[in-house]
């Protein structure tokens, strides 16, 4: 099979394999089946009488057989088609793509953490309970909150935990409120969470300075509002400077103040959410606390809680009892009003170990430095780029900087095209089209683990691209990317006729049509 390797068909050079140097074409495992082959050697048991109740599986499952070398090669080749933090700067706003320390991986794999069962007698795992308790202590101290629920599996799950706790607290007060206020700029998980818990979502507009319009917020606040869900710093990368006024207004109305802590990286060690009047805040261990993104998880979303919400925290609780740490797994005693369980077992222990190793490595001084360097790096990029791209809001930002697509006006190039062209320059694009309040948004978060040289190189690439965009070569952008394992993919076709698995039967039927 021959593939054109350059744009210009008259000078194309074909590859006979379809490979391009280190970019190797790799089929699906299902297309590499050697029937009977196996990559694991297992002993056969001596003959025995099965006791499966006559429900033995019959027939072929359809799983391919491969040897270990083939499997290792397959997944190694797949990995080489991915961009990663380990490969380069990953400027995704709102995701905090910081370096993932390898010490964390080593410690999470200690048999004393990896090979313990959640339901073995607690007396056999005092070290696990101690680790969880230590992590809880660090999170409570950093947030200034007296309690933390550790079981939610990721940020969105943490939001669910928070809103459920708030509703339980209101019900315990004998109140039924039906609305939750969410800024227009919020991440989609916020309204989705509120709606899932039966609330009507009331959107609050932003002001010209990129913050919540406090007057509009106050207009919407009444005794039917259960909570405000605010991200701070917000999704435009700005600190809500009227936050104390906001908190006071929310509490005045008898409502709760929920904070989406996705952007905690900007203020960790320098500000405690409790001091801002926040009642409830989820943290993303896979953002602020460096646990790896893993291509889309697993995450961990613990929720810090004020005293008025602590009684409703989901099970299990880890409490300091008369005989030391106790795991409370049922609604009894002090946990009578707990909202129940949100997840199996005790939470994402593997992420707890990683996050604690990260926190201990930085310490109080290091974590403060993290926030400062994160904010410094983002502002440095803002200043280097503000002449070439169009900042959405004037003035300094926190840990991420937001641009809109004004700089692309009349070029015929969209934010999407610009982002795809950035890929050809060797970078993963920044977050695009989020937040929705800005047209053609480009949200850049460098994080504190980028050095100055890396930032300068990135800024240089963006400046050059912006200049190219304005110079009229729209085709270069619309056909980008060109140097990636795949060029722009047809998302419309994928959604119109979804093909969600390998299905030889269906493929044969379609071939016959």
């Amino acid at each position, binding site marked *: 099979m021959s593939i054109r390797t350059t744009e210009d068909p008259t000078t194309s050079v074909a590859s006979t394999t379809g490979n391009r140097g280190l970019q190797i074409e790799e089929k699906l495992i299902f297309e590499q089946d050697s029937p009977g082959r196996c*990559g694991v050697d297992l002993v056969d048991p001596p003959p025995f009488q099965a006791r499966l109740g006559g429900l033995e599986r019959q027939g072929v499952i359809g799983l*391919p057989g491969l040897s270990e070398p083939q499997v290792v090669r397959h997944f190694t080749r797949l990995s080489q088609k991915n961009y990663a933090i380990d490969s380069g700067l990953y400027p995704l706003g709102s995701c905090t793509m910081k370096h993932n320390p390898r010490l964390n991986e080593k410690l999470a794999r200690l048999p004393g953490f990896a090979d313990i069962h959640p339901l073995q007698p607690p007396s056999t795992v005092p070290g696990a309970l101690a680790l969880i308790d230590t992590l809880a202590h660090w999170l409570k101290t950093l947030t200034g909150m007296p309690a933390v629920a550790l079981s939610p599996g990721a940020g969105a799950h943490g939001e669910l935990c928070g809103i459920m706790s708030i509703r339980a607290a209101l019900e315990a007060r004998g109140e039924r409120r039906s609305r939750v206020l969410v800024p227009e700029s919020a991440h989609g998980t916020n309204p989705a969470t509120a709606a899932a818990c039966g609330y009507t979502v009331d959107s609050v507009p932003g002001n010209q300075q990129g913050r919540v319009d406090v007057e509009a917020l106050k207009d919407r606040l009444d005794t039917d509002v259960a909570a405000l869900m605010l991200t701070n710093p917000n999704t435009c990368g700005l600190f809500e400077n009227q936050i104390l006024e906001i908190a006071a207004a929310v509490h005045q109305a008898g409502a709760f103040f929920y904070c989406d802590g996705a952007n905690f990286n900007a203020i960790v060690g320098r500000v405690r959410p409790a001091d801002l009047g926040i009642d409830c805040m989820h943290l993303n261990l896979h953002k602020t606390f460096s646990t790896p993104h893993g291509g889309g998880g697993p995450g961990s979303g613990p929720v810090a809680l004020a005293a008025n919400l602590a009684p409703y925290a989901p099970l299990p609780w880890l409490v300091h009892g008369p005989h030391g740490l106790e795991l409370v797994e049922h609604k009894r005693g002090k946990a009578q009003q707990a909202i129940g369980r949100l997840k199996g077992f005790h939470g994402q222990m593997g992420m707890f170990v990683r996050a604690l190793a990260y926190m201990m490595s930085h310490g109080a001084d290091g974590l403060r430095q993290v926030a400062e360097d994160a904010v410094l790096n983002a502002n440095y990029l803002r200043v280097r780029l503000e002449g070439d791209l169009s900042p959405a809001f004037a003035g300094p930002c926190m840990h991420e900087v937001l641009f809109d697509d004004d700089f692309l006006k009349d070029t015929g190039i969209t934010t999407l095209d610009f982002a795809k062209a950035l890929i050809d320059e060797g970078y993963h694009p920044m977050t695009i089209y989020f937040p929705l309040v800005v047209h053609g948004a480009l949200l850049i978060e460098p994080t504190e683990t980028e050095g100055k040289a890396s930032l300068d190189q990135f800024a240089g690439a963006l400046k050059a691209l912006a200049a190219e965009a304005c110079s009229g070569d729209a085709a270069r952008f619309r056909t980008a990317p060109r140097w990636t394992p795949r060029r722009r993919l047809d998302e419309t076709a994928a959604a119109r006729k979804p093909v969600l698995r390998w299905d030889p039967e269906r493929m044969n039927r379609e071939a016959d049509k």
Partner: protein
Amino acid sequence: MRYLPLTDSDRAEMLETIGVDSIDALFADVPRGARLDGLIDLPGAMGEIEVERAISCMASRNIAAGSGPFFIGGGAYRHHIPAAVDHLIQRGEFLTSYTPYQPELAQGTLQYLFEFQTQVALLTGMKVANASLYDGATACAEAVMMANRLTRRRKAVLSGGLHPQYREVCETYARFVGFELGGPDPAPGDGEDLTGLVDGDTSCVVVQNPGFFGEIRDYSELARYCHGAGALLVIVITEILSLGAIVPPGEMGADIVAAEGQSLGNALNFGGPHLGLLASREKFVRQMPGRLAGQTVDADGRRGWVLTLSTREQHIRREKATSNICTNSGLCALAFTIHLALLGETGLARLARLNHAMAVALAARLERVPGVRLLNRAFFNEFAVRLPRPAAAVIDALAERGVLAGIPVSRCYPDRTELAEILLVAATEMVTTEDLDRFEQELNEALS
């Protein structure tokens, strides 16, 4: 500080470029009263040696599964993970990459998710599977909510054989999301008949196979009954390896499958991170929560993959999303995919057979112990026995003797005194004959 590349001279230079005197100027929006001038009251930075020492110390205080005979199941299983799995998932391009929203830079992730979805569909006998959820318990709750949306009904019937923690998670979601749950009390054995609880208001019936007490049943008849009443059948699986040995839910008429995939590729990890699986009939796919990888072509006409049907998800539909879920369990799904790729058709069947053989051997041993009665007609690698006295104390006694002998059901059902003598035991390919000897011997002693 080893993870922070900026030097003091970098910082000074950058502050100058920005045009401010100090970093504090960039935090000017923080209300005065909330600014921390000093350091938070936590220990200072530690080097790798010190961190490793402190955390390893905590790890060494735990009795790990490899240190003695181990027979605990109950929704998390101790299996052998081939060495290649952990090496591959630690490749930086897998470990430190993000969700594949820019597909041209993430064909590695998208291809393995497509392979994963295929494997889950094949194993469960269903037509389509998603790219994973947090764990089996949340997958179960999501399955019920999916059934509610599909049938436009709000009452689900939960089998007594459903894992108690899965039931608890469903109860939490039911209370706040707004739907009802019903069902019989938990009990070992295969006598449960749910047909009487299904009516025109039932959205789904949820059964677990093998059940919490290990029993295996054929749910084809129940499936037909549900369909006749306009309800869906959800089958839950907590030990995914069982599908290497027993009839899959797809062949029993299941409409949705919610499962825990931890047994393949993923360690016990004290309960997390684990791996939620969700599969269903093809026509239900637009109501399926979570991410989906779909096949397409690129501008050169070459096959590739993208995240698709995203309009179900929170980042587009916001309030109208099928779920608020964002993150899946990516790296755990990769581990699953690699492990199953290594096993293949023959390896999976062999491994499942080995598990069942060990459980059969264990059952024979325990049945020899005076006063111990096996409660299962059939089982895969886990079953329930009734002891002559409350199981919790027996388990503690055995733990002190170095045997992690199973789960006393009272741990999960503390208020059900009728279940206090029941012990759940599991045996996987990791169990040896010596382990069986020790268990039998220690149990005899503990009960005498």
